[in-house]
């Protein structure tokens, strides 16, 4: 029991990063609380601050859950943990306990808010309701993450596709009751059920695979010509693959699969179930398209950063030249990914029905987010969950969130500062990336192959 409790707490406080995240979430919550109280005093003007801060706080909380879920997965993939008896049972129970504690803490904090600004349709009113919603939401989220980064591509895609129709029936969330049972209860039950199913598989399964290992299994490489030019040799070394086109194609294929499946589900739902009630909402599918280049560029830039060490001695180039090559490669990938995907998103925004909010704003946010993601990728020398990238993404999400709630046209105009801010941030990141590369100390980023989960090689 002691071990379980300890592992539960460890999921939130193991690394220094997690502790800082907790602190940040707490501070943001306090700030949002203060802003909400202040906003109450002057009911005429609607400021976006409480929503922005609330959004950022929710973002930080999401990141904490995300990080703990990732940590859970990473620890499970270690061989040594596999050998310890009952370790996985302990980890599973510990994770559940961690979410329980987090939900209780969240509910407690929300009670502090009181009924200052009850946001229906979210209905944070009662203690029990809040607790159940937090618990159900966190558990479902964790399980979804495990499945999406899971052992097989098909399972991941199917899972996402099953979750996608929620984008259609968003009205379900807006009602206080689902099928006669209070909504909070339903969510909590769904979360617990999902967790039990997952935990059963997790404890019984023979060998939990490393996260994302299914995605790194490459197909047989086509016979590459044995005479390569120096430039292409440098590129191959940076990417770890035979060409940039291949890497980009892999990324595009992955995301297009998601996109097409979700589109199909939505079309199917529209045609078969909700025919008379309301038009299908394709915003989720479009969001996937807009989100894809951001992640793809970040991934490719990260690969190039980690490949740079190989080139230091072999190629004879200086650090400046290596940086220039890697940056050029990353920008090329941005063009290769961005043009088709953003273009398709633009077309779909024009021609597909989507939720009332102005998707062009979201598109602008995503486009301006991409250079920032690129430079963050170039800075990602260690193969780990890219928290700065998530933080940047959460800033964007907060902007989107705020946009949902701000009604006044003046407020909406003000919000267009967000894309500009993102571009400014990416310029700062560019300077940071250059400085880091020009004086890079690879000793600090030595490949941690022995303990990293991606090291499980298949024969």
């Amino acid at each position, binding site marked *: 029991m002691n071990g379980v409790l300890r592992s539960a707490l460890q999921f939130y406080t193991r690394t220094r990063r997690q502790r800082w995240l907790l602190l940040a979430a707490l501070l943001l919550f306090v700030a949002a609380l203060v802003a909400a109280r202040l906003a109450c005093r002057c009911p005429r003007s609607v400021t976006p601050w409480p929503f922005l801060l609330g959004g950022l706080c929710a973002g930080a909380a999401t990141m904490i859950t995300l990080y703990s879920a990732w940590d859970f997965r990473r620890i499970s993939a270690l061989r040594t943990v596999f050998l310890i008896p009952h370790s996985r049972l302990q980890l599973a129970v510990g994770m559940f306990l961690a979410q329980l504690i987090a939900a209780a803490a969240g509910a407690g904090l929300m009670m502090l808010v009181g009924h200052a600004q009850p946001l229906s349709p979210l209905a944070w009113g009662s203690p029990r309701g809040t607790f159940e919603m937090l618990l159900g939401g966190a558990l479902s989220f964790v399980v979804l993450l495990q499945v999406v980064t899971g052992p097989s591509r098909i399972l991941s895609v199917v899972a996402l596709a099953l979750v996608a129709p929620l984008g259609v029936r968003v009205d379900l969330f807006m009602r206080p009751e689902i099928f006669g049972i209070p909504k909070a209860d339903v969510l909590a039950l769904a979360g617990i059920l999902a967790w039990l199913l997952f935990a059963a598989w997790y404890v019984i399964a023979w060998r939990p695979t490393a996260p994302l290992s299914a995605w790194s299994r*490459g197909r*047989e*490489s086509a016979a*590459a010509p*044995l*005479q*390569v*030019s*120096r430039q*292409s*040799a*440098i590129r*191959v*070394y940076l990417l*770890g*693959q*035979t060409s940039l086109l291949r890497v980009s194609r892999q990324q595009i294929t992955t995301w297009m699969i998601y996109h097409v499946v979700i589109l199909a589900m939505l079309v199917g739902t529209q045609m078969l179930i909700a025919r008379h009630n309301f038009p299908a909402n394709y915003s989720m599918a479009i969001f996937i398209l807009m989100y894809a280049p951001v992640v793809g560029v970040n991934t490719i830039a990260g690969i190039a950063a980690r490949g740079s*060490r*190989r080139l*230091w*001695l*072999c*190629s*004879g*180039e*200086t650090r400046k030249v290596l940086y220039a090559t890697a940056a050029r490669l990353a920008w090329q990938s941005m063009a290769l990914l961005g043009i088709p995907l953003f273009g398709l998103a633009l077309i779909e925004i024009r021609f597909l029905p989507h939720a009332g909010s102005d998707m062009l704003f979201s598109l602008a946010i995503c486009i301006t987010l991409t250079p920032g993601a690129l430079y963050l990728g170039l800075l990602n020398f260690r193969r780990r969950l890219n928290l700065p990238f998530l933080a940047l993404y959460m800033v964007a999400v907060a902007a989107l969130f705020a946009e949902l709630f701000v009604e006044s046209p003046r407020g909406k105009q003000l919000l267009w500062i967000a894309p500009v801010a993102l571009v400014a941030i990416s310029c700062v990141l560019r300077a940071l990336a250059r400085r880091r590369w020009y*004086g890079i*100390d*690879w*000793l*600090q980023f*030595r*490949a941690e*192959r022995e303990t990293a989960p991606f090291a499980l*090689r*298949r*024969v």
Partner: protein
Amino acid sequence: MNNGDASGSAVISLRELGKVIGGKAILSNISVDIEPGSIVGLLGKNGAGKTSLIDVLLGFSPPSSGSSRVFGESSFNLPAATKGRIGFVPQQDELLDSLTGAQQLALNAALHPVWDEGLIARLIREWEVPLDRKIQVLSGGERQKLATLLALGHEPDLLVLDEPASSLDPVARRQFLRELLEIAESPTRTVLFSTHIVSDLERVASKVWIIRDGRLVWAGDLDTLKESVVRVTLLARDPVPANLSIDGAVSQRTDGRRAQLVLTDWRDARQRELADRFGADVTIERLGLEEIFLELHA
């Protein structure tokens, strides 16, 4: 140790090299030279700083203090020509998993202006390195062999190897050592390798560096090391004092009339001196490198 000409013939030249990471000094005050034509073995416990030293030497990492020069050039800013004279086999290989062995070799050949196809072909045959399978499915030993090939192809003047034979079976290790000796035969070529396998070092190294907690506790000839470090057993007529205060003693154990110590600056004449001083029967035991290493870390 040569302090002489700065332009000189030293292949590697370290002066008061220090490296601090996160407040911890992983290398301190290392000053040593390597002359061309030597095979230097780097010995040390895990975490003593071997790989860090190699990283700083080859320019992967800037020194926090002091200087590191390779072929006369500063390590952190090695020019392309100098890098072309260096071959490096890292401890954890940096092979590309999705390529085949042949493709990986072709890549390296493209990056270097010189590439000895004949040498590579011969070694592929002798070492039985599979070239047609993806690197992802090769065993640890095969990967290591391939990584070593990549470092030899461009005929480097300086070969740096970090634990080069740890995954190899004894036959493969012997083949590898033989090749290393052939390479080092040329007086212009130098080899630096760090290893745990002390017996390999005793075979092929002419010089030994022993690194402990980031400091060089010995840098010199292997033969001199073996001749300087001996275990001395004294059997005296009268009980010996607990603290014998003998110069150069690394460890000492006393038990009544019997004392055993390890001395690090042995000369044959000292046997007579010690016998006279303590009125004891003095026997000498010469220590192999592994024993020496253990005694220096006791």
